[in-house]
């Protein structure tokens, strides 16, 4: 049995200090198993019950999921997740890659520019949200400043309009994440073989084609890593919404995570919130799909 052998070998290899990495690993494993998977299973169970403020163990089947699907606020939240995911990720990726390419063309003060573009990532999401809320506020923000300067027809009230408010979130998340994409893509670009560039120059291929058809396609794995990182950002963007719009106007910028938290704590509806959490788990699990695809490709 490998199980019984492992500690013995660990003891003989280790110096006298008594440090036991295997024990540390077991502790970690237990914590993950109990806290993470335990809570996960319990949430799954609760989603099938009629729990309200206090967990109840009376199974009602998929009633909570049925109510969830019938709730307009939940549907809005899911649509918003898709909008934020699609536009936010595409935007960050495009802008970040563009910045990386520009920096890669040997600009002056590269270090300074890199820091500037990366800086938003170092800010807390709450501060990001608040800053953008002030900027986009029609009474105190950009709109009032430009109108004050004499451009009286200027109109920027994204936050006030339920149809556009979600795009304010998209803008804020692009602003935040582009720097991250830039730094990763820059590292990728720097890793491109100089021979490839020599060949490109020899062939006289225009620069844009060189990037679009040769360099960027060779960075597929780097791009995929960016996408996975950004997706994780989107699913957990709870704090950005709280700071920027609090889910409003109405519930037009609600996200699934906010829906679940509101129902757990504000609405004393553990059953419905658990059902929402289970669906969110489904979203998170789907994030793993591109990751698994890359792994399979890497192995092949």
């Amino acid at each position: 049995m490998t199980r019984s052998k492992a500690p013995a070998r660990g003891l003989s290899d280790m110096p006298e200090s008594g440090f036991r990495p295997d024990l540390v690993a077991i502790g970690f494993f237990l914590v993950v198993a109990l806290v993470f998977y335990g809570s996960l299973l319990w949430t799954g169970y609760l989603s099938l019950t009629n729990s309200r403020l206090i967990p109840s163990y009376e199974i009602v089947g998929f009633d909570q999921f049925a109510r969830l699907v019938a709730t307009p606020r939940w549907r809005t939240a899911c649509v918003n997740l898709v909008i934020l995911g699609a536009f936010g990720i595409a935007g960050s990726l495009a802008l970040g890659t563009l910045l990386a390419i520009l920096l890669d063309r040997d600009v002056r003060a590269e270090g300074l520019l890199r820091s500037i573009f990366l800086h938003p990532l170092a800010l807390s999401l709450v501060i990001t949200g608040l800053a953008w809320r002030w900027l986009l506020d029609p009474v105190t923000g950009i709109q009032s400043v430009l109108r004050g300067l004499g451009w009286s027809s200027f109109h920027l009230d994204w936050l006030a309009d339920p149809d556009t408010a979600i795009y304010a979130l998209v803008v804020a998340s692009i602003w935040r994440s582009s720097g991250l994409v830039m730094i990763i893509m820059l590292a990728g670009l720097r890793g491109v073989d100089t021979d490839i560039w020599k060949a490109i120059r020899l062939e006289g291929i225009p620069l844009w084609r060189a990037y679009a058809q040769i360099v960027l396609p060779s960075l597929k794995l780097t791009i995929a890593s960016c996408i996975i990182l950004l997706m994780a950002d989107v699913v957990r963007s709870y704090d950005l919404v709280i700071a920027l719009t609090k889910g409003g106007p109405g519930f037009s910028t609600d996200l699934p995570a906010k829906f679940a938290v509101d129902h757990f704590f504000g609405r004393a509806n553990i059953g419905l919130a658990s059902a929402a959490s289970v669906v969110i788990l489904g979203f998170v699990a789907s994030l793993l799909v591109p990751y698994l695809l890359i792994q399979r490709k890497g192995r092949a």
Partner: protein
Amino acid sequence: MTRASVFGGFLAAGLGALAGPASAQSVDVVHYWTSKSESRTINILADAYKAKGGRWIDSAVANFDEAVAVANSRIAGGTPPSAILMNPGSTLDEMTEAGYMRDLGDIAEREGWSKVVPPFVLEKMTSNDQIVAVPLGLHGANWLWYSKKIFEEAKVAPPRTWPEFLEVADKIKAAGYVPLAVGGENWQINYIMSSILSGLGGPDFYQKLYVEHDPAAAASPVVAEGFETLRKLQAYVDEGSVGRSWNETTGLLVTDRAAMQFIGDYVKGEFSAAGKVAGTDYGCVLAPGTEGMYQVYTDLMTITAVDDPDVVKGQDLLVAAVLDPTVEVDMSRSKGSTPGRSDVVSEGLDPCARLGSESLAGARKVFSGPYETLSSDQMGQVTDLVGQFWTDRSMTAEDAATRFAAIFP
């Protein structure tokens, strides 16, 4: 000395500090009174408790929902707080039913609470036939606050019906002011909606809809009319309303930029903080059409069920401190509420507080506010619907009314 023993030493020291010296009577209170006037009020109670020889452990949490969540987690985890600041309603009922709360019936009988606490308040302290709380004070809900300066300038009087409200709002708009101050948060919109439905339907309708959750009342034409009225109010709101908090919104009245706001009487804390005087700078009337009723929120200090006799003693002392007549009066002065005891003298009340205390004394029918009479889940659904109606201008009043009725099956 090995590393392990150093660590052990730290651990022991840390645990020792946590356990602390066992004080004879202490109380661990979970509350959410953190704004300026609120923390001043809870400190009045804490000081009174300390003066009686107890030790006060303050477990302040940012807001009501989180306070209830924290308290319930602690109860589930086996370390219940001694007391929780709460409001009556379905949440408290569920906790009592689960056996989380302590029955204060014997103390109540011994001290004759029924003689000093009005029946309405005593009923609010009672959950599942047990007295589980003591009252900190009562707040009125169905108020309309207005700027005296703007009303004089526009030559209008406080509206008494909803059609009148619209006329008054038009005149104020013509005078160049924002007629209605509202923050575009869903609960603030819903606050107005409750006032509209109360005003259009009257006390009997309020009783049927909000207290009895009668499906017939929820499906009545009053609801559609209410949504139509709410839609009309949107013409009187300023551009910056989206996402604005209630106290920022009150700032518009304080600075005489907007004329009216619907909000509970805790708003007086904001006015007094800005040096404004009730009856001189700002006025108060009951919301249009709600002359005949007074909707009330009761702040309760609920007492949890615990085994440790020392903690029980600490709770007894807390109960005594809350019901101390001087403390009751001081707390309600500080917070702008009405005391929970009817036998205390509260002189020098401002005109708004006087109207409130007259109402409680029997001048009009007293109800619990909608947040106490609906379950938090039901109230949440109503809030979502009203918020959606407010932002989605393509939604018709009839559609909204149909969906409203569906919340009351």
